């Protein structure tokens, strides 16, 4: 697991707060030159994991390394090669934008003569030129978020951790910010957490799905979709005797589990979820088989969008295919 080349490596990492276990046995790596998306519902443990990688909190057990530095013992060394945007942009309201960035640059060890150039670079990347001398407490939410990102980019860190970097931005700013991250990710390692699936599909090479502090899957967006195609679903509604309908459906090739539900106010209309495999024409076969004997009201094949993939993983951990 811990290839020395990995920019970020987690090995069986767990985190407890008191008796509550927040993160369970989490292992994954992020390589140089890739952007990995960290997907999960609120409270899944994304921020805690980010904080452990950043060195803000220590893992209860397991090992976190950043650029080869063990975060338990060498977090100061690691901090030199790390840029971190926490969920809440860490801004000093009493400073103005340039004083704030200058402070972070100096602490990160940017050479004095290089500081002005470095500030210009990150302010251009994050479109902050218009507010250079503004006091931070006067900035809008979008500017605050981008200033937080600018701070993380200072000193061209090898590893960039972004906790929901596009939160609070308008669509135009989201576009620009994604471009900044994408460009940066070409030569550095980026781990970004988000609950926007489109974002993960657009800019991430791989996506890690986490829920309840457990890693459910890590793969390319396309790979995750492919893995889920085996458990593609067809949902249909029909008026039919439940047991006969079930038998009929199970006899069709390509249909796995069948779940028949009857809603009390539907006057005998059954709702059925069928798990089907990826072969084409399954839904047509189902439609023929049902419609030839009973009334078929509705039939829908659910596309394996990343949205569905995500929900599938998060809601039914037992139903997931043997990925990752």
């Amino acid at each position, binding site marked *: 697991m811990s290839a020395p080349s990995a920019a970020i490596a987690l090995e069986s990492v767990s985190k407890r707060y008191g008796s509550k276990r927040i993160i369970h046995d989490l292992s994954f790596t992020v390589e140089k030159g890739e952007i990995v998306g960290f997907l999960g519902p609120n409270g899944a443990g994304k921020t805690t994991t980010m904080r452990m990688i*950043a060195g803000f909190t220590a893992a209860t057990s397991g090992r976190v390394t950043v650029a080869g530095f063990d975060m338990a013992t060498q977090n100061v060394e690691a*901090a030199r090669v790390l840029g*971190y945007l926490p969920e*809440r942009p860490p801004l*000093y309201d009493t*400073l103005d934008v340039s004083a704030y960035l200058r402070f972070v640059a*100096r602490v990160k*060890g940017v050479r004095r003569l290089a500081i002005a150039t470095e500030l210009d670079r990150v302010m251009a990347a994050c479109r902050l030129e218009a507010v250079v001398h503004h006091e931070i407490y006067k900035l809008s939410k979008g500017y605050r978020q981008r200033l937080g990102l600018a*701070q993380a980019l200072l000193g061209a860190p090898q590893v960039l951790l972004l906790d929901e970097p596009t939160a609070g931005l308008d669509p135009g700013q989201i576009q620009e910010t994604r471009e900044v991250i994408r460009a940066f990710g070409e030569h550095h390692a980026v781990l970004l957490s988000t609950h926007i699936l489109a974002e993960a599909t657009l800019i991430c090479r791989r996506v890690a799905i986490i829920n309840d502090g457990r890693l459910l899957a890590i793969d390319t967006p396309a790979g995750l979709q492919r893995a889920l195609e085996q458990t593609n679903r067809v949902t249909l509604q029909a008026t039919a005797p439940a047991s006969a309908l079930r038998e009929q459906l199970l006899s069709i090739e390509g249909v796995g589990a069948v779940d028949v539900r009857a809603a009390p106010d539907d006057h005998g209309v059954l709702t059925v979820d069928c798990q089907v495999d990826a072969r084409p024409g399954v839904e047509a076969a189902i439609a023929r088989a049902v419609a030839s004997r009973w009334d078929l009201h509705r039939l829908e094949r659910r596309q394996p969008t990343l949205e569905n993939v995500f929900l599938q993983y998060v809601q039914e951990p037992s139903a997931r295919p043997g990925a990752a």
Partner: protein
Amino acid sequence: MSGTLALYQKELTSYFRSPIAYYVVAVFLLGTGYFFLYNVFLTGETGMAGTFQNMGILLLTLAPVISMRLLAAEHGAGTAELLLTLPLTPWQIVAGKFLGAVTILLAITAGTLIDLVPLYLFGTPETTTIVAGYLGFVLLGMACLAIGLFFSTLTHNQIVAALLTAAVLLAFWFVGHLQTFQRSPELRGLVGYLSFALHFTDFIQGLVRTEAVAFFLIVSAIALTLSAGYLQWRR
């Protein structure tokens, strides 16, 4: 080292871009000015002893105000997450913060030097006694600020940090009064030794005792070590 320096400068900027520094300077200098005038013109004192005594008590109320924001504000605003993930050791953070607060202390102390002008113009005060008093005041201030810094690392809430600091400083100031109630000489010695007021009185009277210097430095060192240790531990 440059990280500590950058943090120190950020602290000073933060102090002077918020009302706190101005409040502290104004209250301290007005208060000290009043006590000085009172002591010199109404009681006819020709030294600084009485004024130093009053400065000490004024400091007990102002040190918590100086120190309360040091780390509590960082926890509260979420900037602790930046500060603790920058390439800074806990000791560098504590040093930068503490030096920032001590600079405010030195600034208000320097402001009181103006009181010496009439003293030297119209009288012949004992210079050594005055120097000893100032040394004691700065040492006392350092101990108060170090204790304040420690309480500020413990909480998100600046008010809580200030209240805890004030309570502990008052206890250290007045603990000497318990001597009256102690029968055992050991306990009398102990409460006397712990008293900020008794040690500070030595300095005011012109006595620079190694024991008193060491006492304030050790209190500061313990409070700073606890602060750095806590920052490390809470990870």
